[in-house]
């Protein structure tokens, strides 16, 4: 669990650095953040 939490904290840093601070809150209910649709998830949660 410690290792997962460490990785989650690294991901969180990317969320916090995202240009629009409410990007996904903006797109709640399953809409597509980002100009092309999936940048937020690929960049925040991708490798």
């Amino acid at each position, binding site marked *: 669990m410690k290792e997962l939490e460490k990785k989650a904290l690294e991901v969180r840093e990317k969320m916090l650095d995202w240009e629009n*601070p409410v990007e996904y809150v903006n797109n709640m*209910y*399953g809409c597509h953040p980002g100009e092309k649709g999936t940048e937020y*998830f690929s960049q925040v*949660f991708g490798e």
Partner: protein
Amino acid sequence: MKKENGFDTWKYAVNNLIAKHPLQVVSWEATRKCNLNCQHCGSPSERTNLEEELSTNEVIEAFKEIERNFDMSKFRHINITGGEPFVRKDLLHILGEISKNQYFRNIDIQTNGIILGKNPEIIEQLKPLGVTGIGVSIDGPKEIHDNFRRKSGSYDLAFKAAQEAVKRGMTTTVSIVANPQNINHIPEFYEKIKNEIHPRTFRIMTCDPLGRAEESPLTLNSKQTKEVINFLHEKYLETFQNYANPNSTMVELGCGGWLGKDLEGMIRPFIFHCIAGLNNLGILYDGKLAACSNIPREFGFEGDLKKDSIKDIWENKYQRYRESGWKKTGECKSCTEWDYCHGGPMHKMKEDGSRTDCLYQTLSKTSGEK
């Protein structure tokens, strides 16, 4: 400006957004009419004058006015709520008209699934009209859901609607309103939804004392709230590494509020800040201009599109959403999280600056530490 850590960077960006308040999201409450009569509805048809509902042309004109007067390059999406949006006979016609604007082609619709479950082919008709997301409310196992919805068979239709939405390529959210009657079922329910529907998002909302739920015993106590948060934290850690894959199922907590810097970004795929009136405009069923369709009507309105210019109202009448000092009351006065949450979600706010509850405070008290 020196930034001490990620939260300071984020806080700076939020303050910048508040100062600029670009219109990016419209929450349109399409109607207050509904084909169900749910126990916990936050937007019930009681105490509303359904005769005042915006006409087809008034809705289309409102979106044209937005198109003319706002910077559309900043615009992101339209969130359609109700009532039950699909009881509006002209919904598809309206969508056809407004989605002629390329910036109005990222639309989601929140539904109880009754009509889509019976007529899933409607989903195909929605796709060319700019609808990309469908949110279906399912409140736990069949018996519990049908009891909440006061209609036998509503669970099966909602379940089918969500399955069909996923199958037909919609970005789909399944939302459950957590309350004392379903909280013990949430873990098994989550597994069922994940395995049998495969939605993009499994969303838990805490039952707020609003609408019909205002006087019913459906709100969670502190211990139950903590159980929900712990569950989401555990599932988030199990699954977050898959979220770049659009076929994965994400978990999230809805607009319940700020959880504190320790938990934010660790239980849902975003950092929460209420967007009402910051970049989110609410158009209510009768044309009243609010900040979000989730905010109770008793909180008041900023304008009326039947009489006012939307642009004028947006620029000049939303100060109570963009200036937060008046909300710094009670426990907020000395709270160390204030600079990040600014008082939390506006649907919990009362006109005197007090609030129905604060998740951060609830969790702090439950854990015995601040």
